[in-house]
């Protein structure tokens, strides 16, 4: 049972970023009155926002403001801890992911996630890339399909040339930057609609950061990308839209240039000037 209406095979990709519009289907992600508690602590307070399809949106704010929590709501990975309570609604491409008929497995298939520390699995590079295909396959996979998927995914993230001769080496042995690219590559064979990134560059050096940012630009348009970052300069460089959060509340959401050049809210202005954080 597919999560997002469309059949999974040959799901068409949105070819270009759609123009901003008020139609609900134009939103990649829309939240309504989203509240979240870790036991008694309220980490998200009435979040209402619409994240556009096919662009890069960054989530910024000081530590503990709830940006990672919000990100982890979008694939419901927060729920692996028993003490989390969520109320409200999140619509991904028009479908509420908290509806009872939503399958978590299908949801996570169409919403990929990249973590703060690169976390390739302790298996070969090849197996890492097709891990998603394997766990979602009904029967055995055809070898040629696997080979194609691996080549395509690694080409998309720019690892194919370096790694094509050692696909069966352990993924753990790669450089951090390659590991993180691999973590992005392993999402692609599943053809996700949305890619969530939780500070994907914080473990990388300058070169690695640049490479991942370039990769994000390449992927933009095909995928809706949401990135949490601590690094305001990165948000400014690498995102189209920007959301500023503080103490579990969404303070401001607008185009990135506007947020950095002419913030509406004084708290945003103080944060981007570096008065706190």
């Amino acid at each position, binding site marked *: 049972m597919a999560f997002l209406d469309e059949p999974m095979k040959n799901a068409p990709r949105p070819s270009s970023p759609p123009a901003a519009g008020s139609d609900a289907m134009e939103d990649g992600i829309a939240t309504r009155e989203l509240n979240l508690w870790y036991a008694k602590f309220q980490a998200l307070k009435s979040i209402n926002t619409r994240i556009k399809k096919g662009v890069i949106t960054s989530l910024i704010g000081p530590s503990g403001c709830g940006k990672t929590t919000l990100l982890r709501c979008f*694939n419901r*990975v927060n729920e*692996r801890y*028993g003490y989390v309570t969520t109320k409200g609604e999140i619509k991904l491409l028009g479908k509420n992911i908290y509806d009872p008929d939503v399958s*978590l*497995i*299908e*949801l*996570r*298939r169409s919403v*990929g*996630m990249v*973590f703060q*520390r690169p*976390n*390739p*699995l*302790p*298996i070969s590079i090849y197996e890492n890339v097709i*891990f*998603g295909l*394997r*766990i*979602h396959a009904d029967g055995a996979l055809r070898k040629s399909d696997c080979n194609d998927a691996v080549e395509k995914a690694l080409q998309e993230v720019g690892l194919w040339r370096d790694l094509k001769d050692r696909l069966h080496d*352990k993924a753990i042995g790669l450089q951090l930057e390659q590991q993180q690219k691999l*973590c992005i590559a*392993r*999402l692609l064979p*599943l053809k996700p609609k949305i890619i969530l990134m939780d500070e994907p560059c914080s473990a990388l050096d300058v070169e690695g950061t640049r490479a991942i940012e370039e990769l994000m630009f390449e992927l933009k348009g095909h995928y809706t990308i949401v990135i949490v970052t601590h690094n305001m300069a990165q948000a400014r460089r690498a995102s189209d839209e920007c959301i500023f959060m503080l103490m579990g509340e969404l303070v401001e959401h607008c185009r990135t240039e506007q947020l950095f050049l002419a913030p509406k809210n004084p708290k945003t202005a103080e944060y981007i000037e570096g008065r706190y954080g």
Partner: protein
Amino acid sequence: MLARTGRRKPSTRSVWVVWIETAFEWVIRLCGISAILFVLGIFYFVFSKAAPIFFESEFSIAEFLFSTQWYPTSEVNVRYGVLALIVGTLSVTLLSMLIAVPFGLGAAIFVSEFCGPKLKESLKIVIELLAAIPSVVWGFIGLTVMKTIIEKTTGAEMGLNVLNGGIILALMSVPIIVSIGEDALKAVPDSYREAGIALGATRWQLVYRVLLPAAKTGLLAAVLLGVGRAIGETMAVLMATGHAVNIPGSLVDPVRTLTATIAAELGEAPEGANHYRVLFMVGVLLFTITFIINITADLVIRGIRRK
């Protein structure tokens, strides 16, 4: 370090503190080395008691290893063949591992990945209690409860046999396999789990595609500690296996193990007699078997790591 470099500037620390620290360092060093000393000492002791047997005419190493005739106290024709005892030990151990490994690893996976925090805590306490039951109590259970059950269900004449010993040993090894196995799974970084979950893996897929490959060395160690326990166990098998020198043809045949033989006969063998020395030789054999298992395990683990 600072105190050593400059003589002019005396250390502010008192001589006593320095002395005490040095003393502690030596005590700790001694503790570390003592393991080696003990192993060597025990090996020397057992081997020196056993060695004179090689010069006796009535003993041959080939007969010892390959004969099933164990008549150490016969007055006319003394025979010291331990093949039946080796087979006895191996068959009981094998059976117990066939039961305990799936059961123990399954329990470890359940405790570590599937059950809630409260159940987990209580299960861990109970499993530790299970590990603390003395082996003679297990033997007692085998001798009474398990014996009756086996006689009723299999129709065997005698409920003390390979099956009984194997089950009792399995019950004794499971807690070790569970607790070490659970540690091994706990040591798998949570980031692997998150990676799997975020890709849409079900709990089972997470277990067999991510956790088992990641924890395999630790799980192997858990199994091997279980094997070690099973091979070395004496009292429970002495009571539960029927103690008959016999190569078993079926699960309900009685056997005798190497360890049980030593325990049962050493007290009656006069010190320095050939029987006494052969029993020490059996000890050397046991030592060798466990040594081989440990070395193999070590090599296997290294092999897995390198891959």
